[in-house]
């Protein structure tokens, strides 16, 4: 099962894609995706219910979040109401240690994204701040990466024994599916996804270079 684990819709301030159009695009272009996860910036979208769209298009549509820490941006999968009380998702000053520990405590999984990117990527800060404890997975392929950003992520992840996921980081419809993560098990819910991530049962796929 192939899921794009990093997408943004119009719910994000810089997102320009409607979720229905993502679904139409995946089908019209026969992308190999089985679904995608909406990771809106600095929020968890409690309001939207995409179950009807998921059913109509036969896709798995899940919701997560992208928060901001001193080590850069972090995807949080498995957000619960309790986790939302544990730290302020809207803050741009979160501590990575808090995001990691609270996510773990509440059964979620926190994954630093585009870690090879200047300023907003974790490895841009490890020289100064040290290697953070508690990271298990990082995003090693990001659809918006430039230059050597993905390679920096891959090299550091390998050196630190992190597992790697991939996501397109799409902000417009046509950018979905540039990168995705392959799971050998079926994912039908956010709990399934978190379990699969915890089990290490996945592989990052860069579809930009897959031809």
């Amino acid at each position, binding site marked *: 099962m192939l899921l794009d684990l990093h997408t943004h819709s119009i719910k994000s301030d*810089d997102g*320009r*894609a*409607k979720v229905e*159009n993502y679904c*139409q*695009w995946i089908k*019209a*272009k026969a992308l190999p995706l089985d679904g995608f996860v909406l990771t809106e910036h600095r929020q968890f979208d409690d309001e939207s219910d995409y179950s009807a769209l998921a059913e109509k298009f036969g896709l798995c549509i899940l919701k997560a979040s992208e928060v901001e820490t001193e080590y850069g941006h972090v995807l949080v999968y498995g957000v619960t109401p309790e986790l939302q009380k544990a730290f302020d998702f809207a803050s741009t000053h979160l501590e990575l240690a808090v995001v990691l520990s609270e996510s773990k405590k509440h059964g979620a999984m926190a994954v630093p994204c585009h870690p090879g990117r200047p300023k907003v990527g974790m490895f841009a800060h490890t020289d100064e701040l040290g290697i953070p404890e508690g990271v298990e997975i990082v995003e090693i392929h990001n659809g*918006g990466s*430039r230059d050597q950003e993905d390679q920096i992520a891959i090299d550091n992840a390998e050196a630190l024994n992190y597992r790697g996921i991939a996501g397109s980081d799409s*902000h*417009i*419809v*046509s*950018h979905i599916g540039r990168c995705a993560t392959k799971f050998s098990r079926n994912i039908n819910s956010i709990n399934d996804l978190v379990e699969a991530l915890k089990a290490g049962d996945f592989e990052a796929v860069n579809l930009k270079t897959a031809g």
Partner: protein
Amino acid sequence: MSIATLSDVEFGVELPTFEPDTSLKTVGTFAELVGWGGARFSDHEAARKEGLAGAMVPGILSQGYLVAMIHQWAPPAEIKKIDTVFRAPVIADEPHAINGVVTDIDDEEGLVEVDITVTNEKGETRVFGTASVKLPQ
């Protein structure tokens, strides 16, 4: 194929890409025309001293290229809304591509949504956005 009416448009279709004139001369002329005269738009060396990779194409010129592409594809198209995010500088004298794809068609309103991007030679997105375009029914 030149688009005349909404019924000519298919979801997912790519608009013909065009390579804009990003020559320093054109960029400088444009900047002067709109009153943005300044070294960062007309002089690579001076722009580098400001910490840029070279003289920049003004964001509104990139936006103009994107709109021109839409009119080249569909001459009667009326731009109702265009929103562009400048992710990274577009550098003058470097080849770029102006791209668009149709990502939504609203038959009732006669509107087409187009994803628009400016990409450099490495395929990196420098500008992205969306345009909402009205076409005759």
